Each structure stands twice: as structure tokens, then as C-alpha cells.
């Protein structure tokens, strides 16, 4: 006969839960939230702010489903602590839907960029970070930028097409603005 797991001491640590109030800026809006230090940003976005567009598929930084932009950089929000994001500008998929769909979202619909859709928010945010810094990416540059985003439905070819279409549209809009 042998016993299973060892019993765990210091449950008291779990009982005296410390929450302090932090200010987080998400999609241009400031929120005051009581946060526990070990909460990841993805957990806080989803469960405390109800912004469930950001998905959690692995919670290990290995799949990119939780990608958000922090100060313009695409990061896996399951691998950063919410309490450490004070003073930063956080952008989620919900933030793209302003004055209608972002060109990436429209392109995603046209090119069938989403099959089950679970990777789509993270994939779109990674693509946005790419287009913000490189408005005319090649196919290779797109793949390298999205290399941290897994699509289990294997929809990569459609996704690349969607990014190319979106880039074209954004450039076209820019051209019209410049000339008009």
C-alpha cells in the first residue's frame, strides 16, 4: 500500500487574499481593478473585464490564441501578469471594432480566415502588429510574424491571403486619404 500526494501546508496563505487596486488601460479606456498578483493579463481581461475575445488555449505561451498588443507589441497575454501592465496601452480584439470592422476583420471574412475561429482574435492581433510596423509585408514576412500563432484547423493559407488583402485595403485607404 502506498499513499498519494503529500498534504500541503500553509493554506493560510490562500485565505488571506491580498488584492490591491490597479489602473489598466484597455482599448483606450481606463479601468480601476482590484487584482491579485498571480493573475495573468488574459485571466483579467476575460474574467474581470468580460473581454472574452482574447482566448486561452494553452496558457503556456505556446499558441498565441491570447495575443494582445501591449504598447503596440504582440504578446501572449497568458504569460504576463496583469499587475505589471500599469501605465501601458493594451489593445485587444474588441478594440479593433471601432467605426465598423478593421480591414483585417473584413479580409478575414472574405478569405475564410477563420474556421472554428478560436485562434482568430490572437492571429488578427499579431497581424495588426505586423501591419502597423510593416504595411507592405511579403508572404514570408507574414508567416514569420505569425509564427507564434497556432491554428489547429490548419487554415494558414487562407490566413496569409487575408493579411495580404487587408494590407492592400489599408494601403488603398491611405492612398485615397493622401490624394483627397
Amino acid at each position: 500500500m502506498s499513499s498519494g500526494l503529500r498534504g500541503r501546508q500553509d493554506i493560510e496563505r490562500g485565505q488571506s487574499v491580498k488584492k490591491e487596486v490597479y489602473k489598466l488601460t484597455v482599448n483606450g479606456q481606463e479601468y480601476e481593478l482590484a487584482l491579485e498578483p498571480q493573475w495573468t493579463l488574459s485571466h483579467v481581461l476575460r474574467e474581470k473585464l468580460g473581454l472574452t475575445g482574447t482566448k486561452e488555449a494553452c496558457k503556456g505561451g505556446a499558441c498565441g490564441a491570447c495575443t494582445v498588443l501591449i504598447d503596440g507589441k504582440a504578446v501572449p497575454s497568458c504569460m504576463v501578469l496583469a499587475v505589471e501592465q500599469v501605465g501601458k496601452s493594451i489593445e485587444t480584439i474588441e478594440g479593433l471594432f471601432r467605426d465598423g470592422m478593421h480591414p483585417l476583420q473584413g479580409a478575414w471574412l472574405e478569405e475564410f480566415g477563420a474556421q472554428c475561429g478560436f485562434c482568430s482574435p490572437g492571429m488578427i492581433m499579431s497581424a495588426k502588429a505586423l501591419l502597423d510596423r510593416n504595411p507592405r509585408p511579403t508572404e514570408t514576412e507574414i508567416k514569420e510574424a505569425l509564427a507564434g500563432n497556432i491554428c489547429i484547423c490548419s487554415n494558414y493559407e487562407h490566413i496569409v491571403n487575408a493579411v495580404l488583402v487587408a494590407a492592400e485595403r489599408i494601403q488603398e485607404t491611405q492612398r485615397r486619404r493622401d490624394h483627397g
Partner: protein
Amino acid sequence: MQSWSRRKGFKKLKGDGIMVDQLSVIGKSVRQKDGCPRVTGEAKFYSDVILPDMLYAKILRSPYPQADIVSIDTTKAEAVEGVKLVMSYRNFPKAFRRDVHYAGEHVAAVIAEDEETGEAALELIEIEYDPKPFVLSLEEAIKPDAPQVFQGQPNSHDWELSYYLSEKDPETGLYQKKELHDFHGFGDVKQGLKEADVIVEETGLKYAYCKSPAMNPRGCLMSYRNDKLTVYTHSQGMHHEKTVLAEVLGLSVSQVNYVSPFTGSSFGGKIAEPGDFNHPSHYLLIAGFATLVLQKPVKCAYTREEEMLCGWSRGSLSNVKLGFRNDGTLTTIDFDHWMEVGSGGDKWPVKNSLLATGTTLYSRNCKHMRGKIRYVHTNRFLSCGWQGYGAPEGHYAIETVMDAAAEKLGIDPVELRKINHMRAGDIDTGFDPLDYKSCFISASGITECLDAGAEEIDWHNQWKPPGEKTGRVRRGLGVAIFCMGAGRPGPGNSTSAMVKVYPDGTVNLISAIADLGQGQHTVQSQIAAETLGIPYRNVGIVCHDTDSTPWATIVANSCGTWVQGWATYEAAMDARRKLLYLAAPKLGVEPDELDIKDGIIFVQSDPEKKIDFADAFGPLGIYGGNHEIVGYYYHDNPHPRCLKEGKQGQLYIPKEKGAQFVSLDVDTRTGIISNVKVIVAQNVGRALNPKIVEGQFLNARHGVENAALGSDCIVDPRSGRLLNCNWIEYRPTSILDCEVTPIIIEKPEDPTHPFGATACGEGAACPTLAAFSNAIYNAIGVRIKETPFTPDKILLALGKTKGRK
């Protein structure tokens, strides 16, 4: 922007009153009906639903691969502040067993206010185990002295429903007699091998125990309010699961509402049978019982590690012997196959391994067939069918040996397939029809797929035998074909749909058929729009839960488009007939003189005589009038169109079928494979939505994953623990790892579907491993018979390293 897919159209088919040349919605890559929420993030998967006072379940798992639980003490865990319930076999015997059969099996659960409290409380549960001997591999488990996974049962089970078929009708070719036997087949294999000019044999073809793909780990959230249990989850078949769950929980069926509008991909692997320990669906019972007891919402969501552990696996071992005439005619197949089911799982997939054999894929010339199939228990996590449901394993074995045969016969591998693959009208003696002894295959087009793929990869110019390859990096080309089951055409595969037509010309399609990302909601909407003659944008879909929808079949076995397609079509036709019946008197004609286009009802012989839907409906008021027309159809296979000339004993059986080619480079010094290209060519009859069909073909990547990226559930040999239980050590294919080129072939010879479409879903997973293995052989001249084809195996095959002792 590059367009990389091609469709090769052939003749057009005239359908049932609907002129296919005039199709306006079918055949177009319209946008996903429910695409917007997916790209805006508004789509609520079960894990996105957050309810007030929600509690969280955390599961305690066994450290032993085989043990009895001697005692369990949950007092300390229960005393933790924030813990609401601790569950085990003692208070919830339907959800937890007293014996464990794989390392990591669930033994208890804590329901708590937050996850941290739940995790901490788990550690206070005291369990005394009595560990027992265990067995961790298929090869070990089939040995006679292996420890028994289930006491009193041998580990290896012969498949119980093998039949011997005989008495072929000289006119139809269908078998007339089917008797239970210890193998499945027909003819006389011994005789066949004796008469064969060339025999090719391979043993020990191993398909490693790999994991079903799922982007969203499984789980559920349940809430019990006002005498109603709402189940938020992912489901491939809401209605059946609801019925089973209600029974297990002791509720009536009407008290349970299943909500599953979005599923984060499942590829067949998330089929749930609550209460059945052979299915990894205990999250339903944990949350269900806890919700009922606590009267608060309970979320039981797997982590990625739990999904890696509990989600279904699959793996097998095969021996194959093929007998040929000198001209390449494949006359005899002798097939031995063992499928690992772990400590549970579903035994049915093993039958599908036969799809690649003389029962179906090679039934054209095969006169003698012996398929001896077994399923084997081990002390590993559950295994079952997903994306191919047993067929990929069979195809891997047969198509690898076909490649060896091509070499021995001196025939090009593509030509050898062309000589032997099934054609439309050939016989299928597989298990799908159940009640039928054998059936006619409704369509093929495999030759056209081979030709298209060969052209794309420049096979005839680029293919060279391995002996001619030189240099450090060697390129190899491989090919494999497949055919996969598509629904169960005999009785037992049923579904329904409802269509509501409104006076403003819009329609709601009410259908519970699950959209896992494979596009069902879109395609069914297209069928409804086409049948009713209205624009696609005028169709809405109501699909979210079981309360609001009629029964729909499970999406499995690639049957959604086909089986549900009939239901949608007939329901729309039902509504259409009612609508035209209303319209006819207003136009002074008979209903069958009318047609509908772009939402306008017109007289076919005088199109200027027309009215819109509102006029057809007539005046509406608060007290009455026709506010809606409801069309409904309950479809039970087979549909009359599936019978040859309407004859009851002569069933057409549709198949998913096609060819794949793989090109890859092998570095003979490091064993690394790179530059992987997969060409996927399938005959879909008609692509109802080409982009969706392409998306299905892209799933060939899963085969690449299984082939090259180390897809193997690696367990520690001494403790049975799953060592690569995350997405870093078990590698889903990334955007950089291979290229896939889909080629859609439309050969409209299939009468079994309203618009001539046949399945495409699981097929992409079937031939990839064989094509990959064949490409490696073509590159380096050594056949690696065990997946995954990792560098260590390649270097060993090349003699660069010595083997294990």
C-alpha cells in the same frame, strides 16, 4: 494576390427540379454565416461564458497507471474556506471510479470559489492507493502474459462484428450472404496468395499513439435555475448528448438545454457520452452533479495539459500482405490490425481501418480479402476515433505497402493506384451500411485526383527511384490515395431541419447541426437559400441550443453536408411547396407552374407574371394571417435518391475520396526533414462553398504533424505518466512547417446528394502519413515503418547511429 487553389470542372448534373446550371448560391465562396462573431471576438465559446457566483472545478488525478483506491479522506479539503464541495467515488460514483486505469485518471474534484483555492484544496485530499501491475504499450499488451488492464479480461479483443461475405449476385455484383466470422472478408486468401504472381508483405507498421487536435480544451459550464439545467459546452451532437446527460443526472430530457453555438475545433475528438468511462467526458458529470447539488453555476474546464492527457488518442499496429498479378492487378489482401484503445475508448474505429483494403478502396479487383481486426487495452489514456475514425491507421499500412509493391512490380506508384482503385458503381463491403450486406460506391474520381496532383507536383518528370538520389539533401516524392466513410447510409443516421419563411422574403434555418469550423452553418444556409430561390444574405440561422432546434445528427463520419443536406433541402422544399401553394391562386396558375428567383415568385412560362413573398402570404393582422410558413423534414437514411433505380436492396454509399502527394527534403546527415509540400486532391462532386472545401483540405497538416513533428504520446516507461503533455513538447504544426496546396475536383456523378456534393472533412488526414513515408523512402531508399518519422529513426535507418539494445 496569388490564388493557389484550382477547381477542375467536369460535366454539370441536372438535379431534382433545380437546374444546376442556374445555381446562384451553391458553388460560391460566400462568407461564413456566423463569421462575424469569430473575427470580432464576440463569439462565445463555452469558456467565454461567465455567470455571477460561478464556481470552478479542479480535478485530482491519479499518479498510478493502474491502482485501486483503498481509502479517500476529503475532510481537510472540505474545511478550506471557499471550497463548496469535494467529489469522489464515495459521494458521486457515477462520475468517479474506485479503480484507476491510467496515470492521470480523475479520482476526485474540488468545487471552489476560485481556481487558486481549488488547487490548494486538492493537495489536502488524502488518498491511499493500492498500485497494481500495468502495461503501457500495444506490443506489450498483446502478449499472453501481459498484466490485464481490466481484471478477468484479455487485453486484446477481436472485433465482434466481423463478417464473411459470399454469394455474389451475378447481375448486381452485391453480396447476398453475410455471416458473423472471426475475420472480415470474402473469397479465399490462401488461394489468392497461391495464385498471385507477386506477393508483397510488410509487418510491424506502427502508427504511434497520437493526440486529437482541439484548439479549445474541452469542458463545460452548467447552470441550474428555474428547474432548467443549461449546459454551455462544445458539442458535435447536442441533442444526443443532452438526452444521455439528462438520464445520467436523473433529470428529464425537457429539463436540460444544451448550448453550443461555437466549438473550438474538435475534428471528431470531442464526442461526449456522459457517464461512459470510455469517453473523456467526465467534465459533464463533475459540473452537472455539482451544479445540481450546489444550485450555483459550475465551470469544469480542462487545462491544455488535461486536454493532452484525456483527449482522445489513436494508434495501431498492422501487418499487410498483398497479392498481385504481374500486370499490377491487386487480387488478394491479407490484413492484420491491432488498434490501441488505451484504458477505454471506442472500439468502433477499428472497423474503419478496412476502408483502405479490398472492402472499399481496392474492391475493384480484389477477389480475396481477410481483415482480422482487434482493439487492445493498455494502461494509457483513452483512444478513439477522430478525423478519420480508424481510417488513417488502415491507410497508413496499406498505402505504404502499395508503394513497396509498386517498386517490386516495376510499376509507377501512381499507375498502380489507377489500376486498382474503386470506381463509381464498385462494391463496398464495409461496415458502414450495417443493415446492408454490401452497397454500390456512388462516386470515385480518384484517377482524376491522381492526375491533378501529379501534374501539380510534376510527378512524371521529377519522380526518380531512390537509387538515383545523391548528395547530402535528398528530395523524395510520395503518393497515397484514400477513401473514407461518409455518414452511415443505412438506417440509423437520421437528422432533421426546420425552415421558417417570413413575408418579407427572409428565412430562418433552424438546425442543430454543429459547426466546428468546417462550415456547416454556412453550407446549410446556402442549401436553404438555393432551394428557396432567395439571396444568401436573406437566410438567418438558429442553431445555438437544443430547446430551439429540432433533433440533428452528430457531425462525425463527415456526414454533415450529406445527411443534414438532405434534411435542409427537403425542409426547404416543404416550405417552398407551401409557399407556392399560397402564391398560385394569386397568379391564377397551378403551383407546379411557378418558380422562385431572387425572392420573386414567377410563372415559368410568363416570367412577367410575378409577385413577391409578401403578396403571396397575403394580408397580416394581429389576429391572424400567414405570418410564417414552416417547412420541416425528418430525414432517415437512406434517402430515396440513394437507392439505385429506387430498389430497396441496392444502396449507394457515398465516400470521401482522393489522393495526396508529398514532396520533402531529407538531410541525410542530421535526419531533419524540411521543405514539406503536400498536395491534396479530392473529388467532392460539387464544392458547395469552394473556400470551405479548401479549408478542409488544409487539414492534411495534421498528417504532417503526425508524420514529422514527433506526434507521439510519450509515456514514462516506469510510471505511465504522459511526459509531453503540453504544446511545446507535443508539436502542433505552425505556419512555417509545411505548405499545403488544395485541388478541388468536381466530378458530378454522385446521385446521393441534393446538389451532387459528397463529404469532405476527415479525408485529408487519411493518406498523409503513407504519402510522407513513401516520400521518405523515395528520398533515402529506406522504409521507416514506425511513425513519427523523426530524425532519430531516419539516422538509424541510414546507418548513422546504432539502435537501442
